[in-house]
Structures are given as structure tokens and as C-alpha cells.
């Protein structure tokens, strides 16, 4: 099972780094002086978690988990544009 052990080794490096980065993003969200800062950090965080999810799927060995990452990546976008439209000061439906 050399492949497996290699993946395990990579995981031991990668997962903590991603977790720490995610925490830093969270700090930015909580600190964020303005709303754009928070939204930016949230979208970074969700892309970060996407990678984490894809990687964990390999690490755990269950492919069925990976679809969540795709959806997260797709939906993170809508928060961006809706907040943008709100900040432009118009009704969201127009």
C-alpha cells in the first residue's frame, strides 16, 4: 500500500496547513472592518474548504463525498454577487 502511505504523508502536511489558513480567513471575516472584506474572506474560505473536501475524499477513500465541494464552489459565487448588488444600493431584483 505505498500509494496509500504516500497520500497519508501528503495529508499530514496539507490538512493542517489548510485548517490554519481557514482559521486565518475566519479571523478576517470576524475582524473585517467593511462588508466587502468579510465577503472576500468568505469566498476565499469556501474555495479553501473545497480543496480540503476534495482532498479528504481521497484521504478517506470515499468518492461520494466529493460532490459537496462542487456545490460549495458554485454557491459561494452567489453570495458575492448578491452582496455586491446590495452595496450598489439598488433593489436586488432589478
Amino acid at each position, binding site marked *: 500500500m505505498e500509494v496509500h502511505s504516500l497520500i497519508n504523508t501528503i495529508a499530514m502536511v496539507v490538512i493542517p496547513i489548510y485548517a490554519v*489558513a481557514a482559521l486565518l480567513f475566519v479571523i478576517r471575516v470576524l475582524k473585517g472592518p467593511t462588508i466587502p472584506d468579510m465577503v472576500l474572506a468568505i469566498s*476565499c474560505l469556501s474555495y479553501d474548504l473545497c*480543496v480540503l473536501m476534495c482532498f479528504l475524499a481521497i484521504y478517506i477513500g470515499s468518492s461520494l463525498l466529493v460532490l459537496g465541494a462542487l456545490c460549495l464552489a458554485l454557491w459561494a459565487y452567489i453570495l458575492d454577487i448578491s452582496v455586491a448588488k446590495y452595496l450598489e444600493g439598488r433593489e436586488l431584483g432589478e
Partner: protein
Amino acid sequence: MLVQDPYSVLKLAALIIGGVLTVVGALCDLIGAIGLLRFPNYFVRLHAATVATIGGAVYPLFGVAIMSLACDFLGVARWFISAISFLTAIIITLTAPTGSHAVARAAHKAGVPVHPKACDLLEEDRKRGVVK
């Protein structure tokens, strides 16, 4: 050992390329996060965020896509993980810059401070009435 036949060589290559991409991407992500914390205002933070999304998410996803192809223990599922990772990477390259642009535009319109700055031509053009 891993290397026994051409197939194994390919597998090893995929694992190494994928692993390197993933690890480097993780480092990029961390640096981007640090940048997001260190930089002084929103518009400069955008650049750190780009490092975190493109370097920290797209490249690792490509890496995961390549790496999973070599994971025999996953069975057929490795194609699935690979395909989804690849699709996710493409979607992120499409949506991340668009989202940043949308929020940046709105932020500039809403008057989020641009200091420190060397110049702000957009502000000037807005004042002149050239841009809405």
C-alpha cells in the same frame, strides 16, 4: 517498490506532480491568508485573496485531480474524484475573479476607502462624470 513497469512510472509521476501541486498550493493558500490579514485596505487585500484562490485552490484542485488518478485503492471512484475536482477547478477560475470584480466595483461605488494609494483614476473619472 513503486517502480516496476511503465504504468507504475506513470502512477508515480502523477502522484509526485499532484502532491507537489497540492503542497505548493497549500503554502500559497497560507500565504494568501497571511496577506489577507496583513494588507492595509480592502483593494490591496484583493490581491492576496487572488493568491489564495488561484494559487491556493485551483492548482491544488488540479493536483488532487491528477493525484487521484494514481490512487488504485479507490477503484472506479478515482475517475469520479478526478472529474469533479477538475470541474470544480474550472468553475473556481470562472467565478472567483468575477466575484472579486463584482464586490470590488460595489465597494468602490459604496465608498470603501482606497488609502493608501498612488493614484485613483476611477475616482477622478467618476467625479468628472465620464463613468457612471
